[in-house]
């Protein structure tokens, strides 16, 4: 086999192994978000069922942006106003924060670990635009 080809293959193998590592990091970030959200929503619904005998929780979230809602609900939690509604609300917030966290983790990974400037730039733009869209009221 000619040396250039061997070198190419080695480069492609190392690219594959770093890709596979990043796949795991992103995969577990998404899984953690989904499982946390699932746990909170399930716990909230169970609590509602034990309290009222019904699964029904009829309530619309007041119109506000995601960060505003997240801080408001977190404050309620800190003040000890725990209940089925707070748990379900936190589950919904956690779900919405999952893709956001995924973009943030990807941007950090490209920047700090892979030092890939092209994709650091790409993911930073996505992160900035997404942050902007989350502040729309």
């Amino acid at each position, binding site marked *: 086999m000619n040396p250039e080809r061997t070198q190419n293959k080695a480069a492609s193998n190392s690219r594959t192994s770093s890709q596979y590592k990043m796949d795991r990091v992103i995969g577990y970030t998404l899984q953690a978000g989904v499982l946390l959200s699932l746990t909170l929503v399930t716990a909230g619904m169970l609590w509602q069922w034990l309290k009222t005998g019904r699964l029904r929780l009829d*309530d619309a979230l007041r119109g506000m942006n*995601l960060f505003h809602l997240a801080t408001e609900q977190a404050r309620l939690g800190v003040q000890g106003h725990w209940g089925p509604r707070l748990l379900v609300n936190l589950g919904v917030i956690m*779900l919405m924060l999952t893709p956001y966290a995924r973009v943030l983790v990807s941007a950090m990974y490209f920047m700090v670990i892979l030092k890939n400037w092209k*994709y650091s730039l790409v993911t930073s733009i996505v992160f900035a635009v997404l942050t902007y869209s989350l502040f729309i009221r």
Partner: protein
Amino acid sequence: MIPFHWLFPVSILAGFVGAMSGLGGGVVLTPALTWLGVDIKHAIAVSMLCIIATSSGSASVYVRRHLVNLKAGMFLEMFTILGALTGATLTLLISSRFLYLAFGSVLLGSWMALIRTKRQNGQPTPQDRFSHWLELEGSYPDQAQGETIHYQGRRAYLGAPAMFGAGMIAGLLGIGAGAVKVLIQDLIMGFPPKVSTTTSNFMIGVTALAGASVYLAAGLINVGLAAPVILGVILGAWLGTRLLVRLTNQAVRRFFLLILLILAAEMVIRGLRGA
């Protein structure tokens, strides 16, 4: 208020179809909810949460199985999210009835184009310099074929503006437009069906989040409706991912074609009815 025993199975189906097709499940959930008596705006708002749940739940599996092309996903989602914001600001200027008809026709056209490429199965063209610069090649271990599949993404210079267009459609109509994302990766960029389906699944979470935040700000997200939907959708998406990784590329393509046809019909009917 819809009873749990209706909402839960419908959501499981939506998550399953969404994870298997790369569409996110709005195609099932929005019409099902409106049929069960939910007003269309609330139905779309919950569908956005459904897409986030399907996308995150299924992508967590697909990414770890190396099916998703992360770089293609990140590069393309930059265009789709900019398109979505542009679309959302233009939404008042264009009649939604016309949009549904136009979108439905585009989907029908793509459906026919996909059927034809299935028969051709032609020679792959060499990778262009821009796509090579973007590092759009990849490989994944295929469970159905028992070997590692290597592929090269192509024509990113066409895929990028097309993704901007897909984002605009999504923003204008308040849908995920996952179908267009799969089509662009399939027809323009030459990814294998499993890669385009799972990469679309990976991307739509971000577009749907931008959409969901608009509905959240408008106070249209009903937690009572959302809670059982989230549970059902995550379960359905989990089932869908288990099946997809075991299927062949042809089977994934065939499933997508079926869902695409249903979606196209749904859009044309909405257009004819006047949304």
